[in-house]
């Protein structure tokens, strides 16, 4: 039990946002994270379930995912789960457990901005945009949303472009049922053997997921089969990592190199 005065379920984004302006309020989507909060000040939870934000819509060039969509729905959606040649299905399955994926929502996972979030790394790898409401609707890159620490906004929708290149996700965790010690997403499109475009995201550093642009740029124009070792060495040099109970900064640097090698091997296959 958490001690609050009220639990409200507004049915429009606007009214949810208005209530959210009252002090000591917090939005709740799946509830997994909010239920862990031990705040004495919290007075009000604003449930976003009644906002009709549980949908996956396929458009010509992208998918639109409602913020209240459960992670399990991402896996079961025939078209979206196959995005990036099965990338979504494979990577989302690495998160939590069946129960957790039945509870956690895409919007909640992003809005909480947790360093160890696999969802953020996965959606950043896919090049997603976020629609937020903050008095009006705005659309920004997920990457910017994460780094700009946008406060008080309601995440309403995520847009994921259709990917023609290959996408892979690598997660290192102590236990099979555990958060990542380090996670890594890689998206590469090739021109023959050569890397045309690359997007490389590393999360649980343990800081927030981040694109590793130096390595992305390094890989472009290089032969995919021959880029591995140098890319792996480079990422270990440029990546910023930290120490926590799960791993030291040094080990995380090494892991980033190892996970990149694994990812490149899978991409080259």
């Amino acid at each position: 039990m958490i001690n609050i005065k009220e639990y409200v379920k507004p049915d429009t984004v606007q009214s949810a946002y208005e209530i959210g302006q009252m002090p000591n309020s917090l939005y709740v989507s799946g509830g997994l994270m909010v239920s862990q909060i031990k705040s004495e000040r919290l007075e009000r939870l604003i449930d976003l379930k009644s906002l009709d934000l549980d949908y996956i819509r396929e458009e010509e060039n992208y998918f639109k995912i409602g913020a209240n969509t459960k992670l399990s729905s991402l896996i079961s959606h025939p078209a979206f789960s196959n995005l990036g040649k099965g990338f979504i299905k494979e990577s989302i399955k690495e998160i939590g457990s069946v129960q957790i994926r039945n509870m956690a929502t895409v919007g909640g996972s992003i809005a909480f901005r947790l360093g160890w979030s696999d969802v953020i790394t996965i959606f950043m790898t896919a090049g997603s945009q976020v629609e937020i409401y903050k008095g009006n609707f705005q659309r920004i890159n997920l990457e910017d949303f994460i780094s700009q620490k946008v406060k008080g906004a309601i995440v309403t929708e995520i847009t994921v472009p259709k990917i023609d290149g290959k996408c892979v996700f690598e997660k290192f965790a102590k236990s099979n049922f555990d958060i990542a010690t380090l996670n890594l997403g890689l998206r590469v499109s090739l021109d023959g053997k050569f890397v045309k475009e690359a997007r490389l995201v590393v999360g649980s550093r343990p800081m927030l997921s981040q694109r590793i642009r130096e390595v992305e740029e390094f890989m472009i124009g290089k032969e995919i089969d021959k880029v591995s070792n140098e890319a792996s060495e480079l990422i270990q040099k440029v990546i910023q990592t930290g120490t926590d109970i799960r791993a030291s900064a040094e080990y995380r640097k090494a892991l980033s190199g190892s996970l990149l090698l694994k990812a490149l091997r899978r991409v080259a296959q």
Partner: protein
Amino acid sequence: MSKVLTEEKLNVVNTPVEKVDGKALVRGKPVFTDDFDLPNALTVKILRSPHAHAIIKSIDTSEAMIEGVACILTYKDVPHVIYTRAGQGYPEPSPYDTFILDKKVRYVGDAVAIIAAENENIAERAMKLIKVDYEILPAILDYEHAQDPDAPVIHDEPEISGSYDPKHNIASHYEMEIGNVEEELKKCDYTIDEVYYTPNQSHAMMEPHTAISYFDPNGRLTVITSTQVPFHARRILNRLFGVNCRVIKPRIGGGFGGKQAIHVEPYVVAVTLKTGRPAKCVYTREETMTATNTRHAMRFRVRAGAMKDGTLRAIELWGLSNTGAYGEHALTVFMVAGSKTLPLYNKVKAVKFGGDVVYSNTEPAGAFRGYGAPQGMFALDSALDELARKIGIDPIEFKLKNSIREGETSPIFRIMGEGREGVDQIIRSCKIEECAIEGSKIFNWYEKIKRPRIDMKKKVAHGYGVAFAMQGSSIPAIDMGGATLKMNDDGTFNLLVGATDLGTGSDTILAQIAAEVLHTTVDKITVYSSDTDMTPFDKGAYASSTTYVSGNAVKKAAEKMKKEILKAASELFEKPVEFLDLEEDKVVCDDGRSISFAELQTKLFYTFNQRQLEVTESFVSEVAPPPYLVSFAEVEIDMETGKVKVVDFLNYIDCGVPINPILARGQVEGASAQGIGIALFEDHIMDKNGRLITDDFFTYKIPARGDIGKIEVRFAKSYEPTGPFGAKSVSEIGLDTPGPAIANAIYDALGIRMRRLPIRSEELFFEIRKKYG
């Protein structure tokens, strides 16, 4: 599963009977302590110390007495009786160094005050309003510094007794030597001298510690508690409060030694005595992790030597054990690290064991499945593996050549007992050769070790390790268990035992033993266990003793019941007992007459030589026949990350006759998983103030389903003549082998020796990088 050959023809024993409590468990029936709701019960919460070592200068509860708070108790309000929470038989071998509440706190999590309120919410609010002024003292967070010259003294209370040298933070000390290790080592062709570490480990049973107390309608104090030792709990509560009580253990959601100590019971009893009201306390996961017990972390220096031909000549284990803030099981767990490992290699010319058990300002250590043997065996078996490789001999061959055999003994059995001298015993059942030889065939050991270990292209290494272990069955000459059998007029029996089923299935195997003797079936035996007012005494569930001690008590009681039944039938049929026998729920006479148990007891109730057939028997063990185990591990190591996966783990065990092969297999499988946990996953991490950071299942990772590869169990064809129907213990030994088997397998794969558990992927990764680039 193949049935084990035995010397007796068996109908019920050695069959996979379903658990007698199983139907209730799979239906989710309200059978655990927290499932009992008592009207008008108070919720009890404990205020705990945020400091590792401090004196309570003042404590003010006045502002916390908000509406809905029934009482707040501090050290001023509870009996000032020194005791040990260890939950052992009497007199306890653990030092008396604990109070229910004390003016001094000795670890982060130590109890400061007991709050009882109408509900949890009020109790928690009140807890925050208690004002405590602490004088913070320097703390010992690293037990290897407990004996430093400037180390603070943790136990300076004048009432302390039974502690070895509290002024120097030494709770216990032990040493023994047979022969002269120093001299023998000089004669050896090969020697080894290395240091090994095993960590604290949390029991992490799924059900948190829970207790309820209340006065029954007649004013008898009653405690329902998730305990492994109801009779010891009753005795200790009486010592603390001077009040007699009844202790009931319902179903327990796992214990593993963690519910042997007296944790929650004194708090609820103190509240009930103060308020007259029922009181319930359910620990949070955080409390269960931080404020109960852990496995004793230990350091062992092992020196051992052998000859060129593989003859092991001398072993020395010299250790340091961390008992944490209080000395629960300090001496006995430490001794078991030697007494249940060293006799396995009984052919040595000299053997030495000893060291100190020290206090530190960390969570108190206590009993934990394996009870020191996993710690001792990690050191000993790892060292022997190292020695075998130095000599250039196969580790199976080396360990087998030097291990104990049937008909042999070890002087250690007599020298080292439960905190005192032990008991001489000749080994009457030991199938370690079968375990090693047949096990190596099933595991395909000799083929596997010819395979290349490292695939540099895939950056994956495979390795194969073996570990040997022994344990005991009960604490001889101390452990006693009683059993009562009563026959009913419907032909069923009530089996009343003090033995404590903590999920292990002991109620079931005890019913099997009774049913076997009485020529009936388990469904006709209704078991009532662990109620101090109703059932006979039993020492409780620890020391691998229930199957052996309680099982023998039940067998004795059933044999006596059989005699009573035959006697009554003999009176009825007017035939000497020699002409009578039991057969399928009835007494049969050689002249063709027969009478069912139901008819017989009905006659005895109402019409003929009226009496209730009821018997009680007790059993005390004279010996502690060890089970034996050889485990084989195959590990797969990702050389790019240092991650180790146990892909195959084979246990070949000699536990005598398994009374219930399915339940026995489950004991070994479960112990293997906990052993894999201590080897690779479970890590206690503290902050600089001594607070445990890994205090929940989110941060303290016990192996999850996907972390376990294959665990396999095979039983040796073995029969222990002193055991009930040939049985020995099975529950603890499985924890002794995963640590060394996995470390040995990692060495086999990479040539890297990990001498500290848990083996962290990070440490292994940097070792791999050092060696392979």
